[in-house]
C-alpha cells in the first residue's frame, strides 16, 4: 500500500508498504530516519518514541497505515538544521548519554514533559520518563539533564 504522511514538516510518501509494518519500520527503513530506535519493538522501552499529531507514541506500536495524513515529529526534527534543542543540549552537557540507544526516545519524552510542565518536580520527571528504559546510566544523569533543560528554559 501507499503511505503518505508529514514527517518533520515535510510530506513523505512510501510505496509497497506491507500492511503489518510499524510506523517505526516506515521511518527507519523507508524514509531514512533511523533516529527513533528499535530496542524492543514490544512497546516496553520507549526508545522509539516520536510525536504523532503532537502526542508522544511508541512508533513500534503504531501501524504505518495509521500515520496516513497525520503529522509525525521525530528526534531528527526537534531542532532546525544543525542546531540542538535545549533538551538535546542538556543531555550532552549533563553526561546523560552513554551508548545513547535510549537517548532519542528519552529526548522526545523529556521534550514533551517540559512542553507540558515547564518546571517539573523530581517525582514528575520520574513518572514522565517511566516508560523509557536506559540500561547504561542508572538514570541519574538523565534526571540531571531534564532538570538542567528546565532551568535553562526558565531563565531564557
Amino acid at each position, binding site marked *: 500500500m501507499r503511505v503518505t504522511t508529514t514527517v518533520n514538516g515535510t510530506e513523505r510518501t512510501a510505496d509497497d508498504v506491507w500492511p503489518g509494518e510499524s510506523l517505526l519500520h516506515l521511518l527507519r527503513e523507508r524514509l531514512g530516519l533511523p533516529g527513533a530506535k528499535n530496542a524492543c519493538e514490544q512497546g516496553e522501552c520507549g526508545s522509539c518514541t516520536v510525536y504523532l499529531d503532537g502526542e508522544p507514541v511508541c512508533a513500534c506500536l503504531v501501524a504505518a497505515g495509521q500515520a496516513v495524513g497525520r503529522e509525525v515529529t521525530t528526534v531528527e526534527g526537534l531542532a532546525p538544521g544543525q542546531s540542538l534543542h535545549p533538551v538535546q543540549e542538556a543531555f550532552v552537557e549533563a553526561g546523560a548519554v552513554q551508548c545513547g540507544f*535510549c537517548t532519542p526516545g528519552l*529526548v522526545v519524552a523529556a521534550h514533551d514533559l517540559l512542553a507540558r510542565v515547564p518546571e517539573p518536580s523530581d517525582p514528575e520527571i520520574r513518572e514522565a520518563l*517511566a516508560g523509557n528504559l536506559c540500561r547504561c546510566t542508572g*538514570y541519574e544523569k538523565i534526571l540531571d539533564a531534564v532538570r538542567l533543560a528546565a532551568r535553562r528554559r526558565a531563565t531564557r
Partner: protein
Amino acid sequence: MTTAQTAARTTGRIGENAQRPDGTLKVTGEFAYASDLWHDDMVWGVTLRSPHPHARIRRIDVTEALTVPGVSAVLTADDVPGENAFGLEHADQPVLAAEFVRYEGEPVALVAADHPETARRAAARIRVDYEVLPALTDARRALDDDAPLVHPGGNLVRHLRLRRGAERPTAPVVVSLDFEVGMQDQAFLGPESGLAVPAEDGGVDLYVATQWLHVDQRQICLALGMPPEKVRLTLAGVGGAFGGREDLSVHVHACLLALRTGRPVKMSYGREESFHGHVHRHPATMTYEFGAECDGTLVYARAHVLLDGGAYASSTAAVVGNAGTLGLGPYRFPSVAVDAYGVFTHNPPCGAMRGFGCVQAAFAHEALMDELAAAVGVDPVEIRRRNGVQEGDRNITGQVIDSAAPVAELLQRVADLPLPPALPEQPDLRDLPGAVGNTTHGEGVRRGVGYSVTYKNVGFSEGFDDYSTARVRLQVTGGEAVATVHTAAAEVGQGLVTVQQQIARTELGVEQVVVVPADTAVGSAGSTSASRQTYVTGGAVKAACEAVRTAVLQRAAIALGRPVAGLALDGDKVVGAGGEVLAGLADVLGDDAVEETVEWRHRPTHAVDPETGQGDAHVQFAFSAHRAVVDVDTELGLVKVVALDTAQDVGKAINPDAVVGQIHGGSAQGMGLALMEEVVVTDGHVRNPSFTDYLLPTVLDVPPMRVEVLEYADPHAPYGVRGVGEPPTISSGPAVAAAVRAACGKPLRRVPIRPEHITCT
C-alpha cells in the same frame, strides 16, 4: 587569541570532564548504530532457531522456503564453507546446527529476502525433522554418572581447585549457607545487528556491533575458510554490551548470506531473538562456610561454586577462574578450600556479563559476612573492616595486592554518608513500595540498611597475552595541529572515545583529536570487557603519543640545533623548558605527518597451579563498597530501594563525570539482579524472552545514588588508572539483598528476591 588558547589548555585533557565526541550525534538521532545501517540493494537475513533444548536433526527440507517470492537464499550447515564451529575459548559451537541442537534457540538455518517479514515467513516454511532427546537442564546433575552428555568429552567445562593454609582448619565460630543466583541478561538496548557487504576481491566487509573486532575476525575466518585480509570488520555503533557481545551473533550468518547472494545483507534481531541470540550471566548454586575467632577474625573459608554454562563453552572457563580466585571477596583468610565448577547443560549458553563470576560469588560471601557479624555481635561494617585486605596482603591465590586496597576506607565512606529521612506519617504514594499501585499507605513497611564490599580483577588474567594496539598520527592541517587516533577498541557507550581524545590532548598538547572508526585495519585492541580498555588501550594510546612526540621533537631538535631534552609540544608550537615558543609545528613538520603504531602490554599474569589454585593470576584489583537503604512492604513482599550509595577507588579518574556515570549504571544493574532481573528457564525453555516479562529497573525503581570517588593511583598502571566499569555491578546487589534481609528478617538465600520469598507464601 590568548584567551582562546588559555581555554583550550583547560578543556578536554585527562582529569577533566571532556564531553563525548559522539554526544551530539546521539541526541539528534544521527549516530549510526548497527541496526541503522542501510545499503542500496541490500536484503535482510533472518535466523531459524531450534525450538528444542536437545534434539537430533534428522532432515532439513528448505524446498518450500525457497519458493517464497522475494527469497534469495536459504542456508543450512551444509553451506558453511569453512569449519562449522566457533567459540571464544574453544570452537565448540556450530555456526548452524548440523547433527544436534543443544539448546533452545540454537541457529539451524538462515534466510535472505527482500523484506524482513518475507524472510521470517520463508523461515517458517523450512521443515526440520527433529528427534527430541532427553535434555540435561539441572546443572547440579551435570556431573552425575547417568547424566545425558552435552558433548562427547563430558559435561565438565572447568574445575578450579584452590587450597591454601591448613588442611583441616577449625574455628570457634562457624557460619554457613547455601545460595542461588538466577540467570541475568545483559539487556543492552541496541539489538544484535550487522551489515555484511560482499567485496570485489571475493571477501566481505562486515559492519557490526561487537566488543572485540579481532576475536570476531578470527572466528569468522575459520567458518568462512578465508584469510583475514578477506574478512574486514568495522565497528558499527554499539547500543550497550555488558559482556553480551563478546560471542558471535549475526557475524558469520550475515557474511554467509552476503557471499551466497552477492548482495549486502542486513541482520537485526528483535528483542525475543536477542534473548536467544547472546549468552547470559551464569546461574550459580553455592555453598559457603566461614570459620572465625570469637571476635569475628576470619580463620578459614570453604566454598563450592557451581556455574551453569549451558550448551557451549563460551567464556565459562574464565568465569570459573574469577569465581574461584576472587570468590571469597576482599578479605584475609589464613586457610581456604574453594572448588568452582563450570558445567555444560542443555540450557542457554552462559558467558560474559559485567562482573564476570564475581557477581554471583559476592551474593554468597557478603550474605555470609553478615551472618558472621550477627554471630559474633558486631555490625556489618565492622566485620568487614576487621577482615578486609590491605595493600601488601596476599589474597587467596597467594598474590600480593601491590597497590591500594582501601576496603576499610570505602566502607567508612558509604557509612558516613547521611541516611535518607524516614518516611513521613503520610507518605507520598510514589515513595512507597508498590507506589501508585496504592498497595500500602505505610502500614507493614519496614526500612532496612545493607552494606557490601567487593573486588574484581581488571584486564584478562591467568597468563592471557592481554595487549592493545594504537596508531597515532600528528600533522598540521589548515594551520592547526591535528592528532588522529586509530585503534580497534570497541566503544560500547562507556566513553573510551573521549578517553582516547583526552590522552592524546594531554600527551601531544593539541586540541583537535580525531578518533577514527575502529576496524581491523589496525592491530587488535583486545576486548572491551574486564574493565580494561582505559587501562590497556589507554596505555597503548599514551605510548603511541609518546612515540609520536619523541619523533616530532627529534625533528625539531635538529631543525633548531638544540638538544631534545627541554623541548615540548604545546598546541601547534614547539616550546622550550620555560614555555617560550621556539618554532611552529608547521615549520617543523611541513606537510609531513608523523605516525607511530605501538603494541602495549600490561605486566604479565600467570596461570594458577592446577592443584592449589595458587599464583599471580591478576594484573590489578578494583574495589568498591555500597550501602543500600530499602523500604519493604513485608505483607506483600514489595521493595522500594530508597538509596544506593557507592564508594569506589578508581586510581585516577580520566573523566570524572564518565566515571560516575559508569558507577551509576553498574549499580543499577546489580540492583536489578538482586530484585527483579531473571531469565526464567524451565526444562530448557526460556519463559520470558521480552521486556514485558524480563523486568529491567526503570527510573521509578532506581533511587538517587551518591558516589564517592577515591583516586589512589596504581603505580603500575598508566596515569594510575584502575578499571571502573564492573566493581559497582558486583557490590550493589549484595548490599540491596542485605538491606531487604535487614528489613524483613528473612534469610533470603536466592536472588532475584521475589515477593513470595519475603512473605514466605
